[in-house]
């Protein structure tokens, strides 16, 4: 790095990175500071064992909502990952270029529709359908369906980007070996793109855990551990949105703590994904 421009560049980059790091550290610090009053061992015990969430009566049992958030996440991923990856594969390897562009545009559109609109659509279209099956309609199932729709673009777009990164020589080699398209995709491209795909799934999971508005409108918001997909549930984010406006003291701190819990969940997911890829070798 002997050239003057490099020196300037690295200083500039360092400054940018430093600013970004500072901002994000501030966000994290804010979260921790607001949650601090309830981060003692005693309080965490309450979160895990209190019976029910009635903050005005000092009952702060968070577990049912944690299960709800996890259940919604799992359901959404179960739907979105296969669909998103399939779309990414189709767009990259099977579709005619024109169709692929339309698909990309479509995914981008799906990603940009506001959560309120998804919530409204879910409430006016999905919930009555589900209610016809089993009351009340606003349920875990509704939340899973709407959320899956919302995170599918993340999986598809990052997946397609990861697939596009697979070195052309690898694909050409496979083709030269006479492999069929299916084998090429399943045996060469997908494994090679595994790193990027998993990263995309983690981002989608993060998005799912952090989504508030749409889930608030269709999930029912009753604090209970879900027993069936038709049960109304309240996820942690919806809880924050519903109660933050009037919460004070420990209650407010507890809400921030649940936000922190969500961040930690994503951290855990990332770590797990990383471990699962150990030994993946040089993967794009």
């Amino acid at each position: 790095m002997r050239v003057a421009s490099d020196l300037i560049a690295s200083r500039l980059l360092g400054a940018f990175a430093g600013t970004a790091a500072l901002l994000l550290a501030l966000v994290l610090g804010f979260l921790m500071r607001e949650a601090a009053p309830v981060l003692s061992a005693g309080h965490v015990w309450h979160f895990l064992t209190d019976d029910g969430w009635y903050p005005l009566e000092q009952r702060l049992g968070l577990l049912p909502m944690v299960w709800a958030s996890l259940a919604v996440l799992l359901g959404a991923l179960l739907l979105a990952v296969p669909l998103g990856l399939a779309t990414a594969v189709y767009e990259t390897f099977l579709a005619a270029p024109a169709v692929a562009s339309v698909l990309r545009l479509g995914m981008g559109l799906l990603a940009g529709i506001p959560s309120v609109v998804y919530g409204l659509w879910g409430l006016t279209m999905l919930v009555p359908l589900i209610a016809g099956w089993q009351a009340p309609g606003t349920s875990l199932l509704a939340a899973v369906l709407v959320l899956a729709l919302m995170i599918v673009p993340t999986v598809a777009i990052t997946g397609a980007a990861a697939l596009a990164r697979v070195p052309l020589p690898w694909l050409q080699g496979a083709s030269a070996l006479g492999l069929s398209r299916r084998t090429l995709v399943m045996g060469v491209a997908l494994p090679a793109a595994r790193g990027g795909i998993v990263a995309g799934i983690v981002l989608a999971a993060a998005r799912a855990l952090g989504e508030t508005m749409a889930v608030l409108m269709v999930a029912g918001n009753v604090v209970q551990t879900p027993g069936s997909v038709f049960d109304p549930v309240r996820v942690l984010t919806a809880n924050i949105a519903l109660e933050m406006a009037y919460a004070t003291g420990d209650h407010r701190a507890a809400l921030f703590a649940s936000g922190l819990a969500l961040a930690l969940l994503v951290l855990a997911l990332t770590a797990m994904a990383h471990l699962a890829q150990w030994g993946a070798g040089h993967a794009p």
Partner: protein
Amino acid sequence: MRLEPPMRNRADRLFGATVGAAAALLMLVLAWVLWDVVRQGLPMWSWAYLLDEPGNAGRSGGIAPILVATLAILGVALAVALPLSLGTAVWLAEFMSGRAMPVRLALHALAGVPSIVFGLFGSAFFSAFLGLGFSILSGGLTLACMMLPLLISTAEAGLSALPDEWRRGGAALGMSRASLVLQVLLPAAAPAVVAGAVLAVGRATAETAALIFTSGYVDRMPGSWLDSGRSLAVHVYDLSMNVAGGDRAAYAAAAVLVVLILIINLSAASVGQRWALRRLTLA
């Protein structure tokens, strides 16, 4: 990358059909949602709609001030987030490669923080502490914070996926690090960067909770960056959730938002395309 390896047998065709069906299903649902929005919102559209101020709590009139505020907020967010994220991504991938894991973890964790928390942070830091109050600047900066984790993650993933040989090749040719990054690496990572940008902008334009607390509720035409301004998503939210009889207007605004996203995505795609074409091929 148009390889055409053969579709040999039943298994292959089944594979193709399944994958195609999945893509088709998604596009169908997209069409369903869009159809719902457009059907209910289109009746309110007209040129006047785009140029007038809102009246009657938004149920009549237009959305001109709201469009302007939305673009201003997005502009601030992108102007801050893009350089910061690209710079950080390059720094992480080129100067910190191998040691980037803890940073990646932190970024992913932040991507999982609910947007309402970002809104409260923005309100406490930008609006209160820095004294920006309810303003476009405050909203844009908050959105930038929200976009950073996603942008940095995707860009960094794109950059670190590039073969090391390129960097060695560039050094062997006597290229400066800066020109290597600018002319070879970044253009090659363009698809990833654009993907991240599309997702981040989508998330930002759709954002409501964060903006209610920072750029606010006022639907007047903003006169300065320090003025409060209502974004399209906030407008849609208010009309559908708080204002009686506001559904039609909510859908009309939502339809405009979708068109906006379309335009932004198309531009991002073409910018990415041109960028990628500029690259010097080393492989």
